């Protein structure tokens, strides 16, 4: 597959990590340029660097990390031709289908090739992947991609409608993965393609429950056993550092201080008002009265304001916003590694605030990708019943 050398060479496919949300791929082609808002680079600059290097741009205004491709990074960087599979589904399917070094695997359809790369990595050069794609343009692109990634020996890509025309294979594969709108139409073909000398497995990837129900029924009719279904997801967590929570006693003290300040202010205003009483302009006195009453209207009991957050304590805003800092790419902040340390609550005056790290699931997560329907095809029953073979084999005979 991809280069396993320590240093980047011309012709290598590399992954450019700009940010977590912006991961791209590149075939290193000296003579070409790579331009992005994270700087301008010549492909030739990459040649000879070790994988994992951090490269600063010629303009000095940005940098990128150059990584070795893995199927996981490729999934982040690949051109989407269809909805793609992600690590949770891929890795569970690889485990359930018992895909390992030397395995012979069928997948249909190829789609964007996310699963294909993972399988090719796991089976290695001693395994084989037969990949089928119905859509001609997608098949062509996938074939080019596999060639570029040095997978041509491992993967055989066929442009074919497997529901109609099957896999052209008999007793050949250890496992079958179907990501098709109507997998039930391919189940009998899959059975033919699977080996019969050991347990083999199938997985059907279906977004909707109705498809699952129909698939389960087809698998059962075709003689597959151990039919089961899983759903798997990844739940990302945000981690943040927050000041140790403030005790309510401190809040009470602050409120009491506020009361005092307000009372002093009121008394001053009244004193001022009395002084200005001599003032011939009644308007001034009225304002004083108003301000006095406004102060009073801040007293603890009254009607709720219709919006806004009222006169909350200063500290409160800080408390209110101590949402965890998003998982920002710290590597972007060359000069300021402290960017992620949230400002201390304004409430705690000078002393360095003790921090705790807290985590919670990100607010928006992937709620569903697909249902994974698995089943096993066991070697057929031997023609003669076992007990006729060796009636004397019982332990009592020893």
């Amino acid at each position, binding site marked *: 597959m991809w280069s396993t050398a320590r240093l980047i060479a011309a012709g290598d496919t590399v992954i450019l990590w700009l940010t977590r949300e912006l991961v791209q791929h590149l075939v290193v082609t000296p003579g070409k340029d790579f331009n992005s808002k994270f700087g301008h680079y010549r492909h030739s600059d990459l040649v000879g660097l070790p994988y994992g290097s951090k490269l600063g741009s010629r303009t000095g205004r940005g940098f990128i990390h150059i990584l070795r491709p893995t199927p996981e990074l490729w999934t982040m960087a690949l051109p989407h031709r269809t909805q793609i599979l992600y690590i949770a589904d891929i890795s569970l399917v690889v485990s359930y289908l018992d895909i390992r070094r030397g395995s012979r695997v069928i997948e249909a359809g190829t789609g964007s090739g996310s699963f294909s790369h993972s399988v090719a990595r796991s089976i290695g050069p001693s395994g084989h992947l037969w990949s089928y794609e119905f859509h001609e343009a997608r098949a062509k692109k996938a074939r080019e991609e596999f060639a570029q990634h040095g997978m041509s020996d491992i993967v055989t890509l066929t442009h074919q409608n497997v529901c109609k025309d099957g896999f052209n294979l008999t007793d050949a594969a250890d496992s079958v993965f179907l990501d098709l709108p109507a997998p039930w139409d391919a189940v009998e073909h899959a059975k033919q393609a699977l080996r019969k000398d050991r347990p083999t497995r199938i997985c059907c990837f279906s977004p909707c429950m109705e498809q699952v129900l129909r698939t389960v029924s087809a698998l059962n009719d075709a003689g597959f056993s151990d039919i089961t279904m899983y759903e798997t997801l990844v739940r990302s967590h945000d981690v943040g550092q927050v000041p140790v929570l403030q005790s309510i006693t401190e809040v009470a003290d602050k*409120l009491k201080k506020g009361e005092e300040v307000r009372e002093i202010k009121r008394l001053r205003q009244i004193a001022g008002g009395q002084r200005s009483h001599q003032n011939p302009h009644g308007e001034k006195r009225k304002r004083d009265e108003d301000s006095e009453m406004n102060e009073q209207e801040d007293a603890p009991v009254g009607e709720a304001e219709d919006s806004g957050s009222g006169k909350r304590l200063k500290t409160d805003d800080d408390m209110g916003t101590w949402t965890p800092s998003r998982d920002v790419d710290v590597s972007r902040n060359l000069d300021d590694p402290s960017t992620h340390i949230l400002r201390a609550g304004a409430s705690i005056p000078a002393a360095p605030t003790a921090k705790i790290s807290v985590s919670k699931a990100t607010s*928006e997560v992937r709620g569903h990708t697909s249902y994974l329907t698995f089943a096993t095809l066991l070697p057929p029953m031997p023609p003669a019943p076992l007990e006729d073979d060796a009636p004397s084999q019982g332990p009592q005979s020893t």
Partner: protein
Amino acid sequence: MSAPSPVIVPQFSTRTLTIQSGNTILLRLPNGEAKAVKTEKNSTVSLGRLGVFYANELIGEPFGRTYDIVDKKLKLLPPRTLAEVEDTDATNELINDGEFVQPLTLEEIQTLKQSGAHASEIIKMQIEQHANYSLKTEYSKEKYKKRKEAKYSKIFTTIDPTLFNVCEHWFRKDQTRIRDIRIDALSQILNMANIRPGGRYLAVDDASGLIVSGILERMGGDGRLLTICNTDSPPAYPVTVNMNFTNETVAVLSSLNWATAEPGHTPLVAPVDVPADQIKSDRQKTRLNKRKAALDLLNTTREELFAGEFDALIVASDYEPFSILEKLVPYLTGSASIVVQSPYAQILSDLHAKLRALPEYLGPSLTEVWLRRYQVLPGRTHPTMNTSGTGSFILHAIKVYTFFVWL
């Protein structure tokens, strides 16, 4: 078979049956978002791109109806059947194999719209011009059509301001301001705290009034709710605005702050007993009376807190939760529920570790809420592709008496 007995007790409602002048109601727009508008009699409601209409057209209407804005007037539409519901989980993936190109340019669409073409006509033209449209599956076709329709439609639906809908709205709008309290968490909190008409409750709500809204809704104007806040002035509970509560519903609520809730503290307030000869005007007199009423209410509320025997305590606060429980649990009656919410498991783990060493907290439990919504369109039933990752952690315990009755 016995016939059910007739019901004669008059129903109480925390809000009116139909849309009233002065309500703040939520409208569901074609893009799925909710927008809050005020329905003030004789005023105009503007929905931006969708256009304007006269608020009076909504006043008196039941909630939940769908309207099209046609020539600045509302046309009532029948509710949508499943066949008409959009597949909201149309893939968000960027399909870049050149199939989903926009067949009409933005300029062309603009021209069509200015020429008065109806949304459905624009869509029809788009479909006709769509290069690969014939290659698409029926399913994709439908998706495409719905997406286009949403873009040009002027249809909206009024949202019944139930606790469920209001909570969902705030959760989508600003999850942080309501401390990640999703509707499943809010529902469990209210049940765990045994909120019912006639109960007496303590609450600390730093969740914009979501907890207060839930308690008020479930009390239905019968009982008592006392909240403790961190502000000088009475707390703003903006979520209550969307609930459109009747005045009776809100009347059960009073508030103290962390200073005035301390029995040892004497609040510093301006004098209210001003000698008659020092009162300079009627206006000043009115204000002094008002000030006195406020002080009386403050004192009554304090006395009420200190008398205790509350039925439950709900805490959803930014402050250290154990310091809150130490202050307020003494005011709970025996067998009362204590419910503490946090967005973070860690905060409640620490609290749990403290509580389980203390005999007055019976059976402390820490739970996380879990909610999943499904799309149930025919042939396309599956959980929604995107969902909220977190909806709260809840700690529950029962207050019991530490003195021991030996037989």
